């Protein structure tokens, strides 16, 4: 299934960009140059638009497949798109990784806890908090968080910058990931740099993960409530299974099943959300790059980034299917 989806997605992207109402060539040229036939012709040739559409389509698609992504036109003019993506993508992955982690490790346990203790004060506090948290739009939350952290000395009496690892370049901006380049094990071997990079990205990750966190909390709570009253849980209780084993063995694993698609579908949201959050926090990630490419009209770059996003989404879907088969034996791999 993955291959046709990738093909269809990229084909639609190509159609919209190169066959759509916007002429990519004119976007590359300044006002004066558009009226210059020679310059216009040159731009068309550069983009390959003078070829027959089918030929252009096949060329474009085959170069994507071998990851020959060409060069940019407007943004960082003339630099290799491959290098650009390799430069920008790790920051987005770093941000996405921590925001998914925050959502999973705070949202899910909180939801499970609220479900186990349904209709108690703890449940009301957690549920209320989840709804409020979820209701805050992330661009607003991002600005607020930056403002509060920026003047944390005056508000809380201690400085955000002073606790933990020292940040040399202010509370927002790019996390420094260069220490891991070509050597991912440095994540563990160089804890100081890792902590610095985490602290740098933490506010952005909290903002990006907040909506998912609230969502996962609510779904987790409902899932636990549903499983808790199943006959098999009661049968296990009658069997004499201890309360602890009842929760961990019989309830939680079943409650995880409906959470898998929620968590993975939120990973999609992170791709969209990162465009906003990366802009607010000044992180040069792939979302920011996409945003810049779109508003400046670098359509070939937009198309290439679309291809990268499609690959990521299909990849996440594959991970979801694998997770399903691990958690729920009723889902078999043969049926796909």
């Amino acid at each position: 299934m993955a291959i046709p989806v990738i093909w269809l997605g990229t084909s639609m992207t190509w159609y919209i960009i190169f066959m759509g109402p916007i002429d990519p060539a004119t976007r590359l040229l300044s006002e004066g140059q558009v009226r210059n036939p020679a310059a216009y012709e040159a731009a068309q040739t550069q983009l390959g638009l003078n070829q027959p559409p089918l030929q252009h389509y096949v060329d474009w698609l085959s170069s994507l497949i071998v990851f020959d992504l060409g060069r940019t036109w407007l943004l960082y003019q003339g630099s290799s798109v491959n290098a650009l993506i390799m430069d920008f993508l790790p920051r987005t992955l770093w941000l996405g990784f921590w925001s998914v982690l925050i959502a999973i490790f705070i949202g899910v346990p909180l939801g499970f806890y609220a479900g186990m203790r349904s209709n108690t004060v703890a449940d009301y506090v957690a549920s209320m908090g989840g709804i409020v948290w979820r209701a805050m739009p992330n661009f607003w939350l991002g600005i607020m968080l930056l403002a509060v952290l920026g003047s944390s000395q005056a508000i809380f009496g201690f400085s955000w910058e002073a606790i933990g690892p020292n940040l040399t370049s202010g509370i927002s901006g790019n996390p420094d990931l260069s220490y891991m380049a070509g050597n991912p094990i440095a994540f563990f071997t160089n804890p100081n740099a890792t902590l610095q990079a985490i602290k740098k990205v933490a506010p952005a990750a909290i903002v990006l993960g907040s909506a998912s966190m609230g969502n996962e909390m609510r779904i987790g709570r409902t899932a636990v409530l549903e499983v808790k009253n199943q006959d098999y849980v009661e049968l296990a209780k009658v069997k004499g299974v201890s309360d602890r084993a009842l929760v961990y063995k019989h309830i939680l694993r079943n409650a995880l099943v409906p959470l898998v698609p929620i968590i993975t579908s939120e990973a999609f949201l992170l791709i969209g959300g990162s465009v906003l959050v990366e802009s607010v926090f000044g992180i040069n990630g792939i979302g920011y790059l996409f945003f810049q490419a779109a508003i400046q009209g670098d359509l070939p770059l937009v198309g290439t980034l679309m291809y990268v996003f499609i690959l990521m989404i299909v990849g996440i879907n594959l991970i979801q299917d694998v997770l399903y088969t691990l958690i729920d034996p009723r889902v078999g791999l043969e049926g796909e």
Partner: protein
Amino acid sequence: MSDTLLEVENLRTVFHTDKETIHAVDGVSFDVQRGETVGLVGESGSGKSVTARSVLGLVEEPGVIEEGSIEFCGDELVGGNWDEHRGDIAIVFQDPMNSLNPVYTVGNQIKEALRIHQGLRGQAATDAAIELLEDVGIPDAARRVSEYPHQFSGGMRQRAVIAIALACDPDLLVCDEPTTALDVTIQAQILELLDELQREEDLGVLFITHDMGVIEETTDRVNVMYAGEFVESAPVEELFDDPKHPYTKGLLASIPGRTAGGDRLPTIEGEVPTSTSEPTECRFAPRCPHAFDACDEVHPERIAVGDPDADHETACLLYDDEFEESPPEDGVVADGGETA
């Protein structure tokens, strides 16, 4: 009749909701002897399952056991002492599709009980689990033991649930409509299996059903439940030969094939009421073909009726000497309810 397993005395289980308090089980008393099968029969909503759940300690908020005692082998259970007797009372639920945890193998779930109650681990537990599956009549048990519940059919699952119950080495088995969700041929097999196991292990069984036919086949003693109360209790032959309460008569008359002729099957009009307050009247009166004035004003107490040796009781004013109305002639059964 000295070996009493379970003794329930004046059990009252209520559910407190925002609007009202529902008296699901309202002053019920019965006991179960070792080797005996006691039936609980009644329509949907009469409180049968809540009685079973009360006995097992599965009543949860907003429900609460408000009054009464449940003694198991002489130990009082009400007040949260179920943990000490976990495994001594086992249950077979109505819906086998839902009784097994879908994410663990059947063997895993049997072994869990074996570990808790018989201290078996590893290969010994696996062997014991296979043996249990064979005992409950699952073919090819050695392979089946490592399969998941969704690979089992309904009847097989119910057998697996019974195997789990047996793994706990129980004294009392509560069967909450164990055959309702199964088709008739499987139903007969499961009933036969339960009967066999009961004799082998000398179990006490509390058998809950709405099927009078099943009651007649399986039980020694029957309690007829209506709106949270027992309206009639008797040994099974006595109840079927000489029913006293109009409700019991109605239930018996509505068994297909029992009444002669090709007429429409008699039914009992109406539904079981939800008891929201202490009764001041007979709860069956609105549906009763023999109700008279006093039925709306006096709550009937249980009185001995029928064969003096049979321990036959019913709660109906027709049999109370204080009131003038007398029971209808036998054979004139549920004459008000024959319009189906």
